[in-house]
């Protein structure tokens, strides 16, 4: 939007300049714009297509093509116009190359002297004729429209039950786009209707992967369903891409894959606490958590295996897929997610193909995290604000403190989560940033640290700063 307005501002200035230098008679000049709309595949004219052109902030002009695909606009005042052409089953003129940046600009701007009218409508339409400078402008355009391709299909679960309101992503390999880990970019997202049917239209010719997301309606077997690639694969590598030609319509039905995983269970021991002694209601929630893979920026969301309440000191996570997990438990005063944290636990759990039973989780009273800030040479030791923040299904965790002049700090009130770290000078004129962070003997700078931390371990932070007057 910003770039666009700046762009317009420049062009509007050009127009003012042009009118001023070309004298009174040119200020009232008008333009005729005519053209033909043809099918980009076979060059045949498209009758009944419609065309719209207008200047920003002004009422647009409308036209339809005749039997020969011909349209005409008359009486346009000079200026910068955007032109949109559309016909049923065809991409709009500006959609043909890059669906994310609408173009279709047309400049009916005499730029001085006998220079021609210029046009650039996304390289799809080409201006073929230009007038002399002292007659009314008359431009002829040829606009080629590409028929779009469509993928439709039905997503079902076990027993043929339709998967309603499920997100279906249309993904492709695209050069120059921010691809996800598997090299694919999502070009379109649609949702299934209540019958599990979806329709993804306005696709360019190409190869596409169709992916049904495991998340969906509020009550499903979501723990069991896996995100499924057409026709029935867990990842792009084993999926079959759909080749689409211009104008082609293809059906791709997806049967959601199911994987059951194993059971992870055990007992949870609650310490005697002041809150319990005072007869307060206590609630415990547990989370089996797999942090996002290290080193991926931006970091994809963490994988949450499950989120449960233990019953009578027993807990069980079901349908857990193999992997390394962190088991987090949090007991709060009160029975909602806003109660004060009383005790917490954190434990690593490795899951393979077999059930894991007999885990013993011991809640311990929540404790503070202590640490020290070390300043890089040349940086004044100033009091820094140290912030740790994390979030997951157990809630948002945030601790903030001001380190003492000697660099010591204590973070309080954290709840179980993976936490990122930040430092900030209290004066806005000073820039300090974290260059290293260690907890015990582990590097936690990039991927953060898990709370609760083992007893006796402290955070060691190293910070650097902007050195004023030094080579800058």
């Amino acid at each position: 939007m910003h770039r666009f307005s700046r762009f317009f501002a420049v062009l509007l200035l050009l127009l003012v300049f042009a009118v001023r230098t070309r004298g009174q008679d040119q200020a009232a000049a008008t333009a005729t714009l005519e053209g033909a709309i043809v099918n980009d595949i076979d060059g045949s004219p498209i009758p009944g297509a419609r065309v719209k052109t207008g200047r920003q902030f002004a009422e647009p002009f409308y036209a339809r093509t005749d039997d020969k695909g011909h349209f005409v606009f008359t009486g346009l005042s000079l200026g910068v116009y955007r032109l949109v052409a559309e016909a049923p089953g065809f991409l709009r003129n500006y959609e043909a190359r890059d669906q994310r940046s609408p173009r279709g600009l047309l400049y009916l701007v005499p730029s001085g002297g006998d220079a021609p009218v210029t046009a650039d409508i996304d390289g799809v339409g080409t201006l073929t004729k230009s007038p002399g400078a002292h007659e009314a402008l008359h431009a002829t355009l040829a606009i080629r429209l590409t028929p779009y391709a469509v993928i439709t299909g039905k997503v079902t679960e076990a027993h043929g039950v339709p998967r309603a309101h499920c997100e279906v992503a249309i993904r492709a390999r695209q050069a120059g786009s921010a691809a996800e880990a598997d090299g694919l970019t999502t070009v379109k997202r649609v949702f299934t209707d209540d019958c599990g049917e979806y329709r993804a239209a306005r696709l360019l010719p190409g190869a596409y992967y169709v992916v049904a997301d495991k998340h969906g309606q509020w009550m499903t077997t979501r723990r069991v369903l896996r995100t499924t690639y057409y026709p029935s694969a867990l990842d792009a590598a084993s999926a079959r891409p759909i080749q689409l030609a211009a104008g082609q319509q293809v059906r791709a039905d997806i049967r959601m894959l199911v994987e059951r995983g194993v059971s992870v269970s055990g007992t949870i021991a609650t310490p005697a606490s002041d809150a319990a002694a005072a007869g307060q209601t206590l609630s415990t929630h547990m989370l089996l958590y797999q942090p996002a893979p290290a080193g991926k920026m931006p970091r994809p969301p963490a994988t949450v295996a499950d989120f449960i309440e233990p019953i009578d000191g027993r807990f069980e996570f079901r349908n857990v897929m193999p992997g390394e997990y962190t088991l987090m438990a949090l007991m709060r005063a009160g029975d909602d997610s806003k109660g004060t944290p009383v005790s917490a636990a954190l434990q690593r759990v490795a899951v393979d193909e077999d059930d894991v039973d007999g885990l013993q989780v011991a809640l311990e009273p929540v404790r503070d995290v202590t640490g020290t800030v070390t300043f890089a040479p040349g940086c004044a030791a100033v009091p820094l604000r140290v912030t740790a923040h994390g979030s997951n299904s157990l809630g948002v965790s945030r601790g903030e403190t001001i380190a003492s002049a000697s660099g010591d700090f204590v973070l309080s009130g954290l709840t179980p989560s993976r936490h990122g770290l930040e430092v900030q000078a209290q004066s806005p004129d000073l820039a300090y940033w974290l260059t290293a962070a260690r907890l015990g003997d582990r590097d936690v700078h990039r991927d953060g640290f898990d709370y609760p931390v083992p007893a006796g371990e402290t955070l060691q932070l190293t910070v650097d700063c902007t050195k004023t007057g030094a080579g800058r």
Partner: protein
Amino acid sequence: MKPLLLLILGCATLSAQPVEGCIFDSVTGAPVAGAYVAIHGATFNDRILRRSDTTGHFRIEVPDAARGKLIAVSRPGYLIAHEPVASLPADGSPLRIELTPEAVISGTLEDEDGFAVEAALVEALHWENGKLTRAGTATRSNDLGGYRIAELPAGRYYLRVAPPSGSLSPVWDRRYVPQFYPGLLEANDDNVLGIEADQQRTLSFRLRKYEGVTISGQLIVPPGAGAADVTRFVYARSVDVPDFGAGPALADAKTGHFTITHIPPGTWVLTSNARGGRVVARQTVQVGTADVTGVVLTIGDPANQGEAGQH
């Protein structure tokens, strides 16, 4: 089954008793297969979850700790009960649960050129506590103009179509303003639709162009209000229709005058923002059948939160 058995064997204080029941269609009385049955409140989310078999029958072994908890049932094609439907009987007697089949309204939308209206928000609205409120699923029409509103309870509805506006999709002609089936600006007794449970209703219609009215006024930038940051864009946003707006108009650099055309009746909020998107002026306007003139938007003026315009 295995995990649940573990849970039972692993803890001597727990026992399990099956809860059984049958699920029926409330209109036809036929058994409903493949419905999800969940014990709600026993644990978070879907911890105890089963599906009914082809005879509509289900059986769940429930630990004693979950006794007295509530049971929730859902199946595509039936209304989702947002409240649990029954309590677990303490004595283990079988449950009979009825599901109400959804009603569906579907069809296609076209404009006066016979072109499909794409990406329009289509909603079934009904009066609730004096306000028009959405029921069933909201849907956006596809490239063929097709729409489908599902999960509708029986009731009296108005079908409202709001063509796309703003950046969502290109606006072909702003005169296609939000309207009620079969092309009316107001919801009244003439266009109410009586929908029964399990009914499949097809409603295809052609949207009509409305000129609407023009809102005009002046954007005032007081001295010291950070004029360099002011974009001079004025946006209009409908309070009545979600995601529906008009503009931006560009206020004149010298006079501050702006004009926004083709505004249908209703309550509108005019805003202007600074570079970066922060709203710096706001004014609520009631739009009827006459043009609204003399709206004053003053940047940074807290009094600008009030109402203006003609009714």
